[in-house]
């Protein structure tokens, strides 16, 4: 049996990026220690080339590799977002790792491998591939979280992330096994077909799906599976946290979406209530605990949990064909908004961070408005976007989300969303108040790539909010053929 060019086309971005990463791993061995910027540049180049390939595939719909992977509008959209996240992640990390004395070529290689795992996850149409992709994206992240070793907090972060991540993967595998037990297949299309037959045990299938949901709940940091998030986000090197918060979330939600929407539509009745509760709980707990944080990394970690809740809202009506498409498109749109805002906010954190974990308290931001007006303005944009205030992408994202959720008949959930957003305004705006109203002498670092990233994400956050229609349309066409 042979593969056709169609098969290779389906996974062209993934194959390209993986091959690039393997070669870069070896090339890096011959790049002298003081010139690791070359590795960073080559890694970014690899991501950019892959992004080009991905964008050239817009509109192509195919399955390949014996129905194990699919190329469609959804995967193209998510892959493009993941690749941009990877590039932003490298831009943020480049100066940071040098400054913190943890610069090693493997940083960039591992990041590439992680992105390739995320991309494979977005394309997976078989639970086996979902599992392997989950491992491929997670293992580099465990290592990256501990990259600042022998610094204790970083080692602890890596250890915690590894243990809980392995635990979460266990849930996914166990769930997959039960689904296989119930249906006799791991292919998403096969599961749907088997679920329709009366001899299939619905109980076994439901338990399997629930276990898969728990596993992904860990990965995207949904309450009550969020316990690891604050410690890991705080302990990991900040540039890693920035990448982890966006990348792992995007990939986790993409897989969750594809698996549930295409394989488990029959379980929507039971799952809707569970997803409703998960989303509500995640929004409430994330936002309420964030209030009492004094460390900016911990605050953003809880903010990341809260945002997982908002994105989860988009999944709640997944069994209702009338609103499903618009709701999932809103979820995708929100992921884009969150990714850009998140990278920007972490970029500002990186600009203020000093060695030995100094400069990370919210109090350290006092006086930033006077001393570095541009940086403070950028941070204000990101904070407004995280709250969901105009003129930012965060607002547009929330409007789309709430509208979709209400259209699906979950007004109660939308009200919880609005109320928790109001709560979140307190702690996000506190950062803005500290920057402008309090006296202080904050020191920042100036690095070209860091400044560029922060500026770019701030501009994207504002400009796209003024013309969100085209992006939302792209998101809508992306989900159109998913079902």
């Amino acid at each position: 049996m042979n593969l056709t060019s169609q098969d290779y086309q389906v996974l062209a971005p993934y194959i390209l990026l993986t091959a690039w990463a393997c070669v870069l791993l070896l090339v890096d061995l011959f790049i002298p220690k003081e010139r690791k910027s070359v590795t960073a540049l080559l890694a970014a180049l690899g991501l950019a080339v892959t992004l080009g390939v991905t964008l050239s595939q817009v509109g192509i719909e195919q399955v390949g590799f014996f129905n194990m992977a699919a190329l469609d509008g959804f995967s193209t959209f998510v892959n493009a977002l993941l690749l941009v996240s990877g590039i932003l992640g490298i831009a943020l990390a480049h100066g940071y790792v040098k400054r913190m004395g943890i610069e090693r070529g493997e940083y960039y290689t591992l990041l590439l491998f992680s992105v390739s795992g995320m991309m494979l996850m977005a394309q997976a149409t078989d639970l086996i591939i979902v599992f392997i992709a989950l491992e491929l994206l997670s293992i580099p992240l465990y290592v990256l979280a501990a990259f600042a070793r022998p610094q204790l907090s970083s080692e602890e972060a890596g250890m915690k992330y590894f243990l809980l991540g392995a635990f979460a993967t266990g849930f996914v595998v166990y769930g997959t096994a039960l689904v296989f037990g119930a249906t006799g297949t791991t292919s998403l299309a096969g599961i749907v077909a088997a679920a329709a037959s009366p001899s299939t045990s619905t109980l076994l299938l439901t338990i399997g799906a629930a276990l898969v949901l728990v596993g992904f709940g860990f990965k995207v940091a949904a309450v009550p599976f969020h316990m690891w998030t604050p410690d890991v986000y705080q302990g990991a090197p900040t540039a890693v946290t920035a990448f982890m918060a966006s990348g792992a979330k995007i990939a986790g939600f993409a897989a969750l979406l594809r698996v549930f929407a295409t394989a488990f539509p029959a379980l929507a009745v039971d799952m809707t209530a569970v997803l409703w509760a998960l989303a509500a709980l995640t929004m409430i707990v994330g936002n309420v605990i964030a209030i009492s944080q004094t460390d900016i990394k911990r605050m953003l970690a809880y903010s990341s949990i809260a945002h997982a809740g908002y994105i989860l809202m988009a999944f709640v009506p997944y069994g209702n064909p009338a609103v499903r498409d618009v709701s999932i498109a809103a979820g995708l749109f929100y992921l884009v908004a969150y990714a850009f805002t998140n990278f920007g906010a972490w970029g500002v954190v990186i600009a203020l961070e000093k060695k030995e974990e100094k400069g990370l308290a919210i109090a350290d931001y006092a006086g930033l408005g006077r001393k570095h007006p541009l940086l403070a303005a950028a941070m204000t944009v990101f904070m407004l976007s995280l709250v969901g205030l105009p003129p930012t992408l965060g607002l547009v994202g929330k409007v789309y989300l709430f509208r979709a959720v209400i259209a699906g008949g979950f007004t109660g959930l939308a009200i919880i969303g609005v109320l928790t957003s109001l709560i979140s305004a307190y702690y996000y705006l506190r950062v803005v108040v500290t920057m402008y109203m309090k006296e202080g002498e904050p020191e920042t670092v100036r690095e070209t790539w860091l400044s560029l990233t922060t500026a770019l994400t701030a501009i994207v956050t504002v400009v796209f909010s003024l013309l969100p229609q085209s992006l939302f349309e792209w998101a809508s066409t992306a989900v159109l053929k998913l079902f």
Partner: protein
Amino acid sequence: MTPNLILFLILALVAVATALGMLFSKNAVYSALFLVLNFVTVAVFYLLLGAPFIAMAQITVYAGAIMVLFLFVIMLLGAERLPDTHVLPWQKPLATVLTVILALESTYLLWTKARPSGAVLPPGAEVNTVDNLRAMAMTLFNDYLLPFEVTSVLLLVAMVGVIVLVRREKGQKS
């Protein structure tokens, strides 16, 4: 008695004896070595059942690699001899309860001949009829080609990760 049954009974005896030996050894290294013997016995069971691949995987992965890791961890921590005190007081009652549940479950399954109501067939019913290693290779290298190749990337990443985490850069404090 058929030769197979005699062989099975001898092996079963060895399996149970080594499992008990593993449990009751005070020295963790001896426990690990008993476990190796146990794994090998189980591998022979797989051979008797006509599953050479699983038998081989059992020996290379469990009896080989995993046990090497166990032994290294034991030696690394210098924890080969266990203290006599019981650290977890609730462990024994819990273990007893779980064992009884497992025993009841197994008895029930044996009694009812383990027929699931859903009657799900394993993938490819030919697995048990023709040369099963060949059937497995055919599946692995055709339908499961993508997972197979991605696995090698996964192994590579794991190896790089280990080296990044363990290796000290020159001039770095320990």
